[in-house]
């Protein structure tokens, strides 16, 4: 069983996101460890990209800060190495296809395997284009995490069928960012996925409050929170450690014991 699966076996999973290198690689390491101490079950580390087209303004700005701080792919791999000495919590990268393509598929997934990355989420790599990447990734034991959107409809079947790790359900139309209300019929999406394959599902895009997290946890196996955490980093910078810890702890509490 892959490490990713471990995140979903006990409880509903809390998945936290930070952009690697925002505001520095050293602080990313601290923030990630604090999230894990607070109960995060899986961590997404964003590899910064100049033009993250699936992101709202909060994460776009984090990408800009991380790049300005001189973040590179190799520094992120070194970060993952250091984290792996301290934790077994599953780690996945979230990035765009260009940085992966430019690094070279084989070199990239080889490094993922060597340092201990369990999966990679690539928002601009839909099902139709996955073949050229998946073959290499799977060879190195790295899952490519598929996304399913409110518009996916009948595409859900084919995406779910070949999915690995977990399925990232996009809660709403548009880009990442905090939303007051999520109106998509998530229950129906989860049901359709599960009909095709018994694979964990996690919902992201727009979740920020414990109440929302609890509601989502009743429908899916995990809750993904990105912008709300990145916002704390934007606000408190180098001093965001405790704020992140408190926030993740509260969110994890909210989904503990929830059953679907």
């Amino acid at each position, binding site marked *: 069983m892959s490490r990713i699966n471990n995140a979903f076996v006990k409880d509903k999973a809390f998945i936290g996101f930070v952009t690697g290198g925002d505001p520095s690689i050293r602080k990313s390491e601290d923030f990630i460890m604090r999230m894990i101490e607070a109960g995060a079950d899986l961590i997404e580390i964003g590899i910064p*990209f*100049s*033009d993250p*087209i*699936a992101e*709202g*303004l909060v994460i*776009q700005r984090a990408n*800009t800060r991380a*790049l300005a701080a001189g973040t*590179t*792919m190799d520094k992120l791999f070194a970060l993952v190495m250091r984290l792996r000495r301290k934790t077994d919590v599953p780690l996945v990268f979230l990035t765009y*296809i*260009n*940085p992966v*393509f*430019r*690094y070279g598929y084989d070199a990239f997934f080889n490094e993922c395997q060597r340092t201990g990355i369990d999966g990679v989420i690539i*928002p*601009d*790599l*839909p*099902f*139709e*284009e996955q073949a050229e990447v998946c073959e290499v990734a799977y060879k190195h034991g790295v899952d490519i995490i*598929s*996304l*399913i*959107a*409110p*518009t*996916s*409809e009948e*595409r859900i079947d084919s*995406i779910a069928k070949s999915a690995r790790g977990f399925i990232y359900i*996009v809660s709403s*139309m*548009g*880009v990442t960012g905090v939303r007051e209300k999520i109106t998509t019929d998530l229950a129906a999406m989860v049901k359709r996925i599960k009909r095709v394959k018994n694979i964990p599902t996690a919902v992201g895009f727009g979740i920020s409050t414990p109440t929302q997290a609890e509601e989502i946890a009743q429908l899916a196996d995990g809750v993904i929170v990105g912008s709300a955490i990145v916002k704390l980093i934007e606000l408190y910078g180098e001093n965001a450690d405790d704020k992140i810890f408190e926030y993740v702890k509260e969110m994890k509490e909210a989904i503990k014991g929830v059953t679907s």
Partner: protein
Amino acid sequence: MKAGRFGAYGGQYIPETLMNELIALEEAYNWYKNNSDFKTELNELLINYAGRPSLLYYAKRITQALGGAKIYLKREDLNHTGSHKINNVLGQVLLAKKMGKTRVIAETGAGQHGVATATVAALMGMECEIFMGKEDTERQALNVFRMELLGAKVHAVTSGTMTLKDAVSETMREWASRVNDTHYVLGSAVGPHPFPTIVRDFQSVISREAREQILEQEGKLPKAVIACVGGGSNAIGMFHYFIDDESVQLIGCEASGQGLNTGKHAAALSKGEVGIFHGMKSYFCQDNDQIAQAYSISAGLDYPGVGPEHAYLYDIGRAEYVAVTDDEAIDACEFLARTEGIICAIESAHAVAYACKLAGTLSTNDSIIVCLSGRGDKDVATIAKFRGVKI
């Protein structure tokens, strides 16, 4: 070749949220492009609204001044709204309307595509929003007002480098948030499949006419056809019906801005590397594997990538791509203005500049067609500033 690919280039590297819409667009396009009512309706709009066919003008005075091949100008600047952009916009907005969309959105660099989209949206009674880099809204204030006058809402994009590439990203983000009633009128032969093909097809009217016109006027094919290349929509339109004519040289002119070695250019083929961005695999100006900020004096050319079909034509050697600097383009613009009485867009002036270099190397029996993709009204202030003239 795989559908949606030009050799290794093209594809659909785009968020899942948009995939079903791209599939629907492809299906609708494949149906309507062979539908005689649709073709008739579009053709009537091109003739009665856009003012097609555009002239193939023999530039006698330039030809004499250069003393070589005869120079012909394909006058896309004479179209309604002043550029080739209207060809694609009429096609796409008509298609969107048939698909039941009520709202169109578009990116724009210099404003030509934004103005064309706002114009056709007004004509067809569609809601219209335009995304433009904040820097470009300042460079092209007149076009911003023009779009607003036509009833469009213009958003100044403040993310990233605040230029054309950010406007494209922002329009894609907006599209992902309201895909049900909205069509994204992509303005160049770039983006995820089927856009590069759709835009190419709607722009190929340029070479279809030009080929007939030159055969009528010269009795033979030209030695070369030349067009400027940002994303490359006027160029692919200008090349399309000449691709099978192997004797015809196809030349695309990229913006080398302040020079290819200054880092301030927009020459994706001359100086870029293969990458994947804005939905397509193609060539892009890159910097440490990030998409670089492109630069050109022409807001319409400062896009860091190029359409996938150009990448393919470049790789197989069917078309050649040359780089033209800001200085050369402005000189060519002034030269054209003073010899022929035509003020062209700075984009098009890149093609004129290279034609001036090439003409003298060819015989007086040869001809060259230059795509004059747009008129220069929007650029007058930019040229004045470049020359240090206060107006």
